């Protein structure tokens, strides 16, 4: 047993490899939050008047709201006045293409393994890279625009497609939705906007890479994906941050709108800095993600691999409004050391014959706490709704915790809802079996964990699946028990 623990510990103690930071000149807002700052941000981004008013309205609502206390996470109170709400790499003029982007910025992404230049040549993924608060580069824009697809930074979209933004912004996550969504609505700096016209199938994966570089800065990005009727797109999101001693706040909002027969697949590999071995530093990740299946036969699928952040508070949800619409949620959440994760999903069945599927795999190691919190709600009119939920927890080490809080609210007798959950650990027999066949214990753990998470990893696009698998092994390195 103790030997086992030793191996687990070695396995889980590998450190964060994206912890470096780069010094570049940045354009920053003064520290603090008030209406002046919001006006400053809005002016900086040359936003129209309606958007400024929208922000101010959100800010005023936010002032009346209270920080949610119900999540199973504990952290010192965040001093929201001590944060900087805007930080952008200084650029004299807007780059027309990648060649004009500051090489130092491109280098940051190169170190992250996302070579924007290379992406240009390799057919595959269109990337929108967001550093601190602003989008620095978007690739493949021209190819996409031929199909009528809009994929650009949020601020660009505000200028070029104001009607679309006006129509859909806040339509899925209202500005008053919750404390952090309201805060985001007031101060959001940038993010990605994606619009797929009717009947278009997006030929490549769309991807955004987020990075927090500056210290003492909150990142508040806003992503909006609109898939018109009969369209399809697959969207990837990745995140990293430098290693700093103080905690940083990340409060993003993602909204997805899917028209009838449209399908949106949203995948996240979240690898924000989780804090060091003693729980110092790390990102507070308070994200609101929600999609609406507005039309009949539409589908939204969330896949997430959560390995980073000191505290995660995140519930990607689906509102199944259209008849025959489908919502899916696949999640692997790994916590190690002092990380805390409270994550799950909400499936709101409104339309008839709607289906949802939840597969959540939690892995806790070290002294971490991992909670699944989910809600399946079948409204009165949602006849023949079907839900299947499975949430499994894997515990490594005797100092960590795994918790499940599923809420199941059924208001219609034709609903079929199933929920199952298990909690277990990696058996000594399983490890022994692998050892016997010449697989070292550390590899055995990676093998077992990957097998355990396979159902979810299979849902990821290929490029991400490889990264996610590596990330899983990495996060858990030194934690076998």
């Amino acid at each position, binding site marked *: 047993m103790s030997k086992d623990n030793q191996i687990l510990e070695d396995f889980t103690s590998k450190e964060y490899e994206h912890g470096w930071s780069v010094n570049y000149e940045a354009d920053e807002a003064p520290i603090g939050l008030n209406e002046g700052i919001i006006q400053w941000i809005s002016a900086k981004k040359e936003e129209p008047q309606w958007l400024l008013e929208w922000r101010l309205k959100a800010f005023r609502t936010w002032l009346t709201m209270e920080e949610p206390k119900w999540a199973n996470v504990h952290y010192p109170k965040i001093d929201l006045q001590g944060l900087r709400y805007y930080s952008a790499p200084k650029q004299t003029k807007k780059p027309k293409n990648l060649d004009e982007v500051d090489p130092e910025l491109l280098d940051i992404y190169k170190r992250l393994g996302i070579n924007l230049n290379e992406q240009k040549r390799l057919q595959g993924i269109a990337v929108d890279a967001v550093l601190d608060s602003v989008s620095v580069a978007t690739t493949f824009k021209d190819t996409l625009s031929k199909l009528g697809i809009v994929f650009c930074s949020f601020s660009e979209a505000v200028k070029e497609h104001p009607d679309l933004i006006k129509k859909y912004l806040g339509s899925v996550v209202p500005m008053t939705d919750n404390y952090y969504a309201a805060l985001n609505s007031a101060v959001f700096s940038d993010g990605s906007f994606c619009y797929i016209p009717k009947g278009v199938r997006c030929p490549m994966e769309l991807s955004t890479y987020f990075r927090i570089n500056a210290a003492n800065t909150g990142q508040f990005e806003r992503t909006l994906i609109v898939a018109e009727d009969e369209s399809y797109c697959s969207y990837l999101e990745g995140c990293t941050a430098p290693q700093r001693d103080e905690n940083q706040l990340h409060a993003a909002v993602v909204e997805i709108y899917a028209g009838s027969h449209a399908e949106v697949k949203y995948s996240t590999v979240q690898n924000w800095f989780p804090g060091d071995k003693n729980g110092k530093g790390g990102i507070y990740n308070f994200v609101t993600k929600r999609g609406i299946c507005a039309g009949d036969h539409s589908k939204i699928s969330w896949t997430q691999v959560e390995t980073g952040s000191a505290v995660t508070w995140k519930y990607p949800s689906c509102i199944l409004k259209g008849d025959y619409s489908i919502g899916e949620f696949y999640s692997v959440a790994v916590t190690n050391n002092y990380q805390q994760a409270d994550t799950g999903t909400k499936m709101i069945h409104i339309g008839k014959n709607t289906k949802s599927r939840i597969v959540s795999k939690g892995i806790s190691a070290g002294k971490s706490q991992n909670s699944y919190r989910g809600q399946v709600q079948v409204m009165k009119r949602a006849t023949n709704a079907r839900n299947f939920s499975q949430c499994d927890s894997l*515990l490594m080490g005797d100092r960590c*915790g795994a918790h499940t*809080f599923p809420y*199941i609210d059924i208001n219609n007798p034709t*609903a*079929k*809802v199933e929920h199952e959950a298990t909690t*277990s650990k990696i058996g000594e027999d399983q490890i022994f079996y692998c050892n016997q066949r010449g697989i070292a214990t550390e590899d055995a753990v990676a093998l077992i964990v990957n097998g355990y998470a396979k159902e979810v990893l299979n849902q990821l696009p290929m490029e991400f699946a490889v990264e996610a698998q590596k990330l899983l092994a990495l996060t858990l390195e030194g934690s076998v028990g």
Partner: protein
Amino acid sequence: MSTLTKQTKIGSLIDFPAKGFESARSQAKEAFEIQGLPGAKTEEYKFTAITKKLEQQLTDVTMAEPFEVTPELVNSHLFEGFDGDVLVFANGHFQSNVSSQIEGIEISLLSKKSDTSIGKIAKPEKDAFCAINQASFADGLFISIPKKTQLEKTILFLNFTKISSGQVIQPRIWIEAGDFAEASFIEQTINLTDVTFFVNKVVEIKGGLNTHLHYYRLQNEGSNAIEVSNIETDIQQDSTFSSVVISLSGEMVRNNLSLNLLGSNSEGNMYGLYLLNGKTHVDNHTNVDHTIPHAESNELYKGILADHSRGVFNGKIFVRQDAQKTNAFQQNNNILLSEDAVVNTKPQLEIWADDVKCSHGCTTGQLDEEALFYLQTRGIGKLQAKGLLLYAFAGEVLEHIKHEAFKTYCTQLVEDRLGAKL
């Protein structure tokens, strides 16, 4: 947390404490003042708006006085085949003159015991109603089963309620069992009035080493009973505790059932069946706390909901850091029979130990069309087939009742109810 404390009628009970138990009462009062009555946003009472219900339905907030119960009345309400001992309560007050004299165990009023530790197991901090009871209950019953006493006869708590206008009944029972003791209890209430009343009950059970206890409850008081009960048990090494709760009617019923496993090799079983119709609202909150290694808990709650009824289930399993090698299982199944029935379920696991086997499952659905069709092809009418399948569904809980006569009685009630659907 709600701040309704002072304004609400039911909360005013704490200002008129009965005699005795001064320190326990003031402690409870303090605990109540901190938490207040549960409001709409209180997580634990999210789906059960009990405070609002009491506000609307309770015209008079005074403690119900006892009334005279005759031996004939008692005998006429014993279920068929019952051969155990009966302890009779009138509006929550113990009636020794019509109760059985049970040899070998100690039974007395709580007020006669100077050294009780009421409130040590069912802590007033945990629940507002538990605090109200502790602050204002009139008197309760103390039962002590000595070491190595195995009671062959089951003890029946027979509660009679007879009230003029919606009053409050606050029974309180303390049961302690010595090492190697065995006993079983049945709790049943006979309602003799048709006005709305509120029962706020607390039962504390303290087990010794290697004690084996069964606790059965039948809730069938009719549609004017509003009830909150807090039953909490501590069990020690090598002990077992099994509980079966059958809920058949009530205006609004909230059962808080908690079990603390304090010794290794202990086992807790909790079973429940709720068969609801009309506007009945039944809320079962269970809580199993695994504090030590090598213990086991099983939980199975099943519900059949018709008409405008609402069923709430919240099962919590805590596995503390030291509780390695824990096995904890929990299951909740529901069948909805009507458009207006609602189920809210939350099977919750909180696990801090790694070497455990824990699982929970929960389903909500309808009868299997194919099973129904199969029975129909065998010449069984649709309604009858439905009754048969529902009965089979409920039977899984009923079979955990180890007292034969009580099992037959409950089975009869369930059959009648499901037969009414025919």
